[in-house]
């Protein structure tokens, strides 16, 4: 049935990227372009009383934007609406914009920026999740809450009353930087009609326009947004580009010049979003036979200075704090609190990695408290078909969590290897251990979000630049390295039943593409992919009818394998001939399709009850680790993983996503570390913010199980985020297995291992 879906088709954008031809935001040739710079607050918190302009500098040569120059409201129109574009009164984080400057050269812009000084009455600030949690435990009222949400199932009191033992632990995780290769970049070009054209490095073209309407005071039609090639994003170009776009647009509208802002690496690390630091308190009621009777979770995220997207990160987080286990009584309390640091934001996994880090470390702790093996404990409690999740969602036929678990255990030879673990007594100077993590990841927007989103896709049959017929896929989904530009033509060609040669997927431009929603939440292959497939089927139908009427004398015609054939007459014509005839006679043709969430999916956004995701991907990771007693260095030797991400559209790209994501998760687990010093991240360059290299990656032994999404073809679920979810707890569980020591915060560094051994020795 599928000819292209399921094949490891070579990346369509690979050649130009490898050759270095691809133009990124900073490469775009824009005549007479000015450079923008942001003037920032040097303090974390306070009251901004004035701006001092150095009288020695001639400000007539540059364009300066302060709050008074904003045509509309001085607010970033995201959730919460609490963040101004340019601070005018309150300062909430170090680096908050206080003015914008543009000039014909980058140097002049920087010179001008250095001559503007904000005067701020400083106030005491709160910087870290540790401070937040300390206060939360003593006097939570003193914290500023940015968002909150609960989940309730059954009666948590009854659940604990049923329990023989209760296991309670706390788990911490820190900031993580996306570290995409291409830093943030955007250019704004004023248009003759008073509108503005924005082009840059971004994931979600249809976030930018609507979020700028009230600030720029322009109608949505006058804000055109085009994606330039993106050199990596990982969520870092989800909501953040709206800010850079706003800075550029404000400067362009005031100066009348095109204005671009390209961050250098240091600015990019200091002044863009990070993964939210988290704290989880997992409290679990257990029967002696291993049955879970109650799961109570407190889940706190450090939101940074403003709300931005934190509520939705929190929702996804709390929905994954108990996911994967059968439990009649569940109570989850989630909070996002303010700290005076750069607002934290989207990053691959979006709250789930933090939740799963705690949950899966804790499941091992529960097993140990019961004297059970981690495998037996998970076998006893993991969700089977027909079971319900914490929100009451019934696990359906198209997902089978226990099979994933069993297959991975077999593949890694887990039970045998675990018998050779050192359990706290090193052999020949080495601790050796193996650890397990089992997890799911909701595909698409939370709850019925996909119903409200109504994602659209269009296909245009038209002429290409060489006058040849081509089918252009018109979607707002973006390529950022993950393969959208390759899988969409695969899917469309299968919907059309043509060869891939006739199908293209140009970079999105809001002038030409409908809104297919943002490129986030592991939703593109499932939601937009199936919408494109449906559109292709519609186009095929239109072409078959045309061919029949015009070229086959009314006989019924079917398009298959790139040819129109009439079963009645035996006549057959190639696709390209019919497409040419169509264009000549009827002209260009567009078909639309819209994603439909099945009515059976029901969700209560107030109570968080019902079907929290249209579908789930599942995974199991097994990590094998060694700790050298000479140096306390930790080496992850091997990672075995099986993932169910639905139908594989492109197995090569899918494996690339898994290996890359696991390596990012490895960094999260054992390397990537930032502290806040005077309101700034101390690791603010590639020299100090250390991510894994190829030499640090373990041997990966990976496999897939395909349980397709059943509500639409071709049936992909989601692969983008799930590889980020499970490796950190698998490693922590392996370290526990090796050393007998539990680490409850990541990253687990040699320094921490050394301290832990010393503490254990001095206690003994």
């Amino acid at each position, binding site marked *: 049935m599928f000819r292209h879906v399921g094949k490891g088709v070579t990346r369509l954008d690979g050649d130009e990227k490898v050759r270095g031809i691809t133009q990124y935001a900073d490469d775009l040739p824009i005549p007479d372009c000015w450079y923008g710079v942001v003037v920032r607050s040097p*303090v974390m918190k306070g009251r901004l009383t004035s701006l001092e302009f150095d009288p020695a500098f001639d400000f007539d040569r540059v364009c300066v934007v302060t709050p008074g120059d904003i045509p509309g409201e001085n607010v970033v129109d995201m959730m919460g609406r609490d963040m101004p574009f340019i601070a005018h009164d309150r300062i909430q984080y170090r680096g908050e914009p206080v003015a914008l400057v543009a000039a014909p050269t980058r140097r002049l812009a920087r010179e001008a920026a*250095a001559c503007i*000084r904000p005067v701020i009455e400083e106030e005491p600030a709160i910087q870290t999740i540790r401070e937040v949690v300390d206060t939360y435990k003593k006097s939570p009222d003193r914290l500023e809450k940015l968002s909150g949400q609960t989940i309730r199932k059954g009666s948590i009191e009854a659940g604990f009353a049923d329990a023989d033992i209760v296991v309670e632990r706390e788990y911490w995780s820190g900031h993580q930087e996306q570290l995409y290769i291409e830093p943030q970049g955007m250019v704004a070009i004023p248009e003759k009609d008073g509108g503005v054209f924005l082009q840059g490095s971004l994931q979600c073209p249809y976030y930018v326009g609507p979020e700028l309407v009230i600030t720029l005071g322009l109608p949505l039609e006058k804000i055109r947004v085009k994606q330039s090639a993106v050199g990596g994003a990982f969520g870092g170009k989800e909501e953040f580009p709206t800010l850079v776009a706003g800075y550029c647009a404000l400067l362009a509208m005031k100066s009348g010049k095109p204005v671009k802002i390209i961050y250098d690496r240091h600015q990019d690390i200091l*002044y863009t979003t990070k993964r939210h630091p988290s704290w989880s308190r997992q409290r679990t009621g257990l029967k002696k036979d291993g049955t879970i009777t109650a799961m109570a979770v407190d889940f706190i995220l450090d939101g940074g200075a403003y709300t931005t997207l934190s509520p939705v990160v929190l929702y996804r987080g709390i929905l994954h704090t108990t996911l994967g286990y059968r439990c009649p009584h569940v109570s989850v309390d989630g909070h996002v609190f303010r700290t005076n640091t750069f607002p934290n934001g989207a990053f691959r996994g979006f709250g789930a990695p933090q939740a799963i880090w705690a949950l899966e470390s804790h499941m091992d702790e529960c097993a140990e408290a019961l004297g059970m093996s981690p495998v037996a404990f998970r076998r006893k409690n993991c969700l089977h078909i027909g079971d319900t999740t914490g929100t009451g969602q019934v696990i359906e036929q198209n997902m089978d969590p226990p099979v994933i678990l069993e297959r991975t255990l077999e593949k890694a030879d887990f039970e045998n290897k675990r018998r050779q673990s050192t359990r706290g007594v090193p052999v020949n100077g080495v601790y050796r251990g193996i650890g397990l993590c089992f997890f799911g990841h909701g595909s698409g927007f939370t709850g019925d979000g996909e119903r409200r989103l109504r994602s659209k896709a269009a296909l245009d049959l038209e002429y290409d630049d060489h006058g040849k017929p081509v089918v252009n896929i018109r979607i707002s989904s973006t390529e950022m390295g993950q393969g959208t530009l390759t899988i969409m033509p695969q899917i469309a060609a299968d919907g059309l039943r043509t060869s891939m040669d006739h199908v293209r997927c140009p970079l999105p431009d809001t002038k030409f593409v409908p809104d297919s929603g943002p490129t986030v939440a592991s939703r593109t292959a499932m939601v937009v992919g199936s919408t494109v497939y449906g559109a292709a089927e519609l186009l095929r139908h239109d072409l078959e009818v045309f061919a029949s009427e015009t070229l086959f004398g009314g006989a019924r015609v079917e398009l298959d394998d790139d040819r129109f054939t009439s079963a009645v007459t035996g006549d057959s014509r190639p696709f390209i001939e019919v497409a040419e005839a169509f264009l000549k006679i009827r002209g260009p043709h567009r078909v639309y399709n819209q994603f439909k969430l099945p009515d059976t999916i029901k969700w209560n956004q107030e109570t968080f009850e019902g079907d929290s995701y249209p579908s789930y991907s599942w995974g199991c990771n097994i990590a094998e680790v060694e700790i050298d007693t000479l140096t306390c260095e930790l080496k992850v030797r091997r990672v075995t993983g099986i993932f169910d991400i639905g139908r594989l559209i492109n197995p090569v790209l899918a494996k690339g996503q898994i290996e890359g994501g696991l390596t990012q998760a490895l960094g999260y687990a054992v390397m990537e570390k930032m502290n806040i010093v005077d309101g700034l991240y101390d690791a*603010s360059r590639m020299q100090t913010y250390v991510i894994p290299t190829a030499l640090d990656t373990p041997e990966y032994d990976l496999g897939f199980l395909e349980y397709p999404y059943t509500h639409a073809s071709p049936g992909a679920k989601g692969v983008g985020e799930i590889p980020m979810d499970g490796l950190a707890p698998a490693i922590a569980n392996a370290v526990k297995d090796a050393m007998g020591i539990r680490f409850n915060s990541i990253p687990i560094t040699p*320094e921490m291992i050394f301290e832990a051994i010393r503490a254990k020795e001095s206690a003994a």
Partner: protein
Amino acid sequence: MAARGDPGIIVRTFEDIDCAFPSNLSEALALLGDEATRGKLLAGGTDLMVQWESGSVDMPVRAISVKSLPELLVLKIEGAHVSIGAAVTHWDLRAAPVVRDALPSLAAAAATVGGRQIQMMGTIGGSIANASPAGDLAPALLADDASVVVASAARGERVMTMESFLLGYRKIDLQPDELIVRFEVPVRKEGEKEGFRKLGPRAAQAISKIMGNYRGAIAGDGTVTLFRVALGSVAETAVRLHKVEDAVTGQALNDGLIAEAERIASDSIKPISDIRSTADYRKWVGGRLIRGFLEDLKASPSG
């Protein structure tokens, strides 16, 4: 020239620097000898460009490139030592057979500096003159008992031991009119063993948390006849651990001695905490590296 409060804004650019390209050592020394033409010495630029860009060091008005001075590119055995020009790159050090055979732990250290691009540009002279305690080459030169040769137009050549050349944090015994010409490193003799170990936050492309080198030898009866050892990133400069050397030299290399050496090493260093590691860990693991070296020496064929 960073804007007040914002470490992200640097105004000046590299194009502002007036750079001279002398064609030999005497031309370079002449430029350096006259205050009117004196400029910042620039070799591979792999430290300087980073420092200028980050604003941690002000960009100079003038620079003098020493990367192609023929006198600074020598790399050959001269009698009992290897002569290594200051502009010899990390790549040359890791690849040249003479270094690999005669000074294997220097070659090993050079092979861990940055990635290939950095190894092709970065020089041994730049690394030593930069005088960062985290520079990976200094412990090898200390453990190998190297000398450094500097020169000026006014006073000609001056020779010092590496140990006396390293004065403190980013401080070396070099006058404003001098530059480093070459290093003279005693060739490893028959029966001498060397080792290098670097601990970084990852397996490659990493600045050291701590690293060290040794050169040693043991007699047939297990007595240590030579042990020189140095560590980096544990003090303001890379340091020789004389107390450890004294404690083991002439002694029988057994488990008790190794434990004693580990303790002395750990006691004799006073590292700091910084973004890469903690003082406590460095102090402990400094001793562990010495243990590793002595175990390595003990396992050597002659031992």
